[in-house]
């Protein structure tokens, strides 16, 4: 069984066979598990149900995080959208609200699906649900799009990483945004090459993003970066669907992110020793929470 080495391989194969990226990813997964299509499909469908549930819970029963730093972002943004309208457009704002809701649910010990990590769990579900509402795509198409997201995520994981401790936030919220952008293009009926361009544009825009959580907690700035990751994904998907191409192909963007991750200092990789975590207010919060003295 060969590893998925590049996005280019997947795109070429899907173009040759006139199928979607998700189809290639599902077939590979079938071979890997020696399992039937239904078994794999049902497992992903189960994950989507939990993702949907996490978005519902986040909106109906918002809870504050254990530290109290986050928890009402979804509610505020939805209220604002309903009463005052938006600048960025309803779809973008709705997706951002959902992404923050799920990320805050994670921070309040709610049940989520790591995608690719717990800290970036809001982006993919928020983008896919919002895109499906806009395009009228049904559940089957959303589940297929999740396979596309996972396929792109696997290439990132193989060639870079999907751990903030190894590569910074660019491979957590950045990876999620890249996965979501590519999946949204497929969900909207775009071509495989367009999906890859969307992923490339999304990841390029956040390459170098450091992992600098205040007091070491998955709250600040993680929750808001889920919102920006969702908005970034939708905009990148729109650009790709409009025919805008990424000059740097996705595989090379992933390679660049891997290189940036390698030279990124440890203080900016989840250790809470640099970046936003080292600001005076963050140090004060860490002391107040008893994390540091």
């Amino acid at each position, binding site marked *: 069984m060969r590893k998925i080495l590049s996005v280019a391989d997947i795109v070429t194969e899907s173009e040759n066979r006139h199928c979607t990226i998700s189809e290639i990813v599902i077939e590979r997964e079938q071979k890997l598990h020696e399992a039937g299509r239904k078994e794999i499909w049902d497992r992903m469908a189960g994950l989507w149900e939990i993702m949907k549930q996490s978005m519902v819970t986040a909106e109906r029963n918002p809870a504050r995080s254990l530290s109290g730093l986050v928890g009402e972002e979804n509610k505020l943004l939805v209220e604002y959208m309903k009463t005052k309208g938006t600048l960025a457009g309803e779809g973008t704002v709705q997706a951002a609200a959902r992404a923050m809701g799920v990320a805050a649910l994670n921070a309040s010990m709610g049940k989520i699906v790591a995608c690719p990590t717990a800290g970036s769990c809001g982006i993919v579900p928020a983008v896919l649900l919002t895109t499906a509402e806009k395009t009228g795509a049904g559940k089957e198409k959303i589940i297929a799009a999740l396979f596309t997201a996972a396929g792109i995520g696997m290439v990132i994981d193989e060639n870079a990483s999907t751990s903030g401790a190894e590569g910074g936030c660019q491979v957590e919220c950045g990876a999620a945004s890249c996965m979501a952008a590519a999946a949204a293009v497929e969900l909207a009926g775009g071509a495989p090459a367009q999906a890859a361009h969307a992923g490339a544009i999304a990841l390029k825009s956040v390459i170098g993003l450091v992992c600098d959580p205040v007091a070491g907690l*998955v709250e600040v700035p993680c929750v808001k970066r889920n919102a920006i990751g969702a908005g970034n994904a939708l905009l990148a998907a729109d650009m790709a669907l409009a025919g805008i191409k990424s000059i740097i192909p996705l595989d090379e963007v992933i390679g660049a992110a891997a290189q940036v991750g390698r030279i990124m200092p440890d203080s900016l990789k989840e250790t809470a020793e640099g970046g936003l975590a080292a600001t005076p207010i963050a140090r004060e919060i860490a002391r107040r929470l008893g994390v540091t003295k």
Partner: protein
Amino acid sequence: MTIKSVFDIIGPVMIGPSSSHTAGAARIGRMARSILGEEPKSAQIYLYGSFAKTYKGHGTDRALIGGLMGMDADDSNIKTAPELAAKHGLDVEIRTGTGLEGTHPNTVHIYLTGVSGRKVFVGGSSVGGGNVLVSRINDFDVAVQGRYPTLLVEHTDIPGMVGRITTILGGSGINIAEMRTARNEKGAGAFTVIQTDQPVTEKVVTGIAGLPDIITVSKILPFREVI
């Protein structure tokens, strides 16, 4: 190198906020409960490194207690586990410690007492992505990850013990994936950890417990694949 699955990228289903500080902690707690082999009555938990610094904000304490009560990493009751433990009469004390230089930053030591008075010490670490490693059980150095069904046997260090144990396993059609025996001094107690491909049945546990020179037998169920 293992080939990744799409479900390594999307998944696991877990209670947040952190795969290492929450999901991994729940798994260590659940493994400690299995190692004790009975309902725990009291637990003294010592947290080290990053666990000690950030446990409140990550709910590490709640996850460990939930695990001690038998909860999986995706059990929504983890959030209120301390309250549930109090109701069930499980007495828990959480302390933070220092001085474990050289060990993994997310390390926990658990002193557990069961309803029958049985005591066990479990030392483990959460090594990332929800994966865990139990590295100490009582006086013995071990390496248990909980990915396979695992049988733990404490016995006298005499010739033929391992053979008698593996005969019972083989007789029940259970294949050994990995096995390790540790002892502290020649002829004293020894500890054998056997990871198997098939689930370890109660019949096997009883059979091994019935052998001469066996001190304790317990088993750890592998982590349930969620969804």
